[in-house]
């Protein structure tokens, strides 16, 4: 009965892999279940089962791979093209690499959808959207750090440089991330300098959690 009673849930395809003749093994991101693996029998004939398309699904089964009982489109596919598409693939790679299966992250669905929707409108500052998402992801995973105070609780100073300690947060150091750019990030003042620092800082903040394998989607940005 527990399976029967499950309702339609919002879900996004992060990744689809062909399985047998006509089926797919999907990595999904759902609001209620986090990242989950499912088998879609005959899924290669269902053009809905693609990334960047809001879906409603009902699942059945238990264990590592669930079955899809029902799929409905919850809107038209997001028109991501070119760099926006690369950005979307980057988001999906981040989620696949950083979220454990069946570990719900309800707080991450809104930032994910908002970022994809903004990417679909062809905004110029795509990198800023990615930075906001990376911050939300770190926060959701419990790895966030303050951009206004250092590890001791003292306010950041524009003239000081800081290093990032994964455990403690930002620590004043003789060289490192410039305080001015960090304060710019906190204030949402995205000057060119700030954007460069933000990219490298968040890359460094994510690195320990990604392991030794680099993110392939970063190679798409030339």
């Amino acid at each position, binding site marked *: 009965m527990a399976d029967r009673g499950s309702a339609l849930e919002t879900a996004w395809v992060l990744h689809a*892999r062909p399985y047998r003749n006509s089926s797919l093994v999907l*990595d999904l991101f759902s609001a209620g279940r986090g990242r989950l693996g499912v088998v879609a029998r005959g899924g290669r004939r269902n053009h809905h089962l*693609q990334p960047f398309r809001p879906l409603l699904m009902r699942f059945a089964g238990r264990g590592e791979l669930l079955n899809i009982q029902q799929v409905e489109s919850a809107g038209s596919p997001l028109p991501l*093209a070119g760099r926006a598409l690369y950005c979307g*693939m980057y988001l999906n*790679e981040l989620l696949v690499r950083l979220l454990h299966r069946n570990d719900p992250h309800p707080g991450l669905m809104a930032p994910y959808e908002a970022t994809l929707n903004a990417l679909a409108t062809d905004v110029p500052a795509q990198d800023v959207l990615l930075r906001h998402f990376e911050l939300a992801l770190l926060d959701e995973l419990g790895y966030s750090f303050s951009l206004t105070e250092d590890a001791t609780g003292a306010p950041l100073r524009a003239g000081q440089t800081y290093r990032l300690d994964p455990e403690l947060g930002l620590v004043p150091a003789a060289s490192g991330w410039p305080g001015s750019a960090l304060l710019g990030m906190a204030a949402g003042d995205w000057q060119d300098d700030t954007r460069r620092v933000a990219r490298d800082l968040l890359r460094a903040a994510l690195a320990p959690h990604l392991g030794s*394998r680099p993110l392939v989607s970063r190679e798409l940005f030339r």
Partner: protein
Amino acid sequence: MKHSPLVQGLIDAFTCLPGVGPRSAQRMAYHLLERNREGGGHLAEALTSAMDGVRQCSRCRNFAEQELCPICLDSRRDQSQVCVVSSPADVLAIEHSGEYRGRYFVLLGQLSPIDGMGPRQIGLDQLEQQIQAGDISEIILATGTTVEGEATAHYILDMVHGTAVTVSRIAQGVPMGGDLEFVDGATLAHAFRGRRPV
């Protein structure tokens, strides 16, 4: 019951085939051992010679038994016109259509970061060298219409930008003998955008 080491080795070897699990592997191994020793020996020879003799064409990455594949060697074909596809099966499909007289570039995959497939893994550095060397005058993109296919097409478009190479993409739309009613909305939208005067 445990299999003897040689039989177990054969069963394990069969599981490298896609869609073959331990049970079907066991059935295949028993079949060859019980009923078709000759076929088994033939399979072993064919496997060995193919694994040793088949390599990638150094120009288009398709399967070849020499430095270049038959299509790249064919001087009657336009060697400066290049159709980019993701698999050897796509080459076969296009060859069957009988429409195309250029050569191919076979990616053996598509850009798919989560599968570890980046630009280098699908040979795009090699394609870029051929573009830079001036060997190519026209590229026809025939990657799929999936997210990965779109990303691959866009990446190649970026690579070609600023060179004299012309790029086109095969048309997408309503299949032959198809009823509009059964065509999905996205395909229909594409077909409308790509309509042409008759």
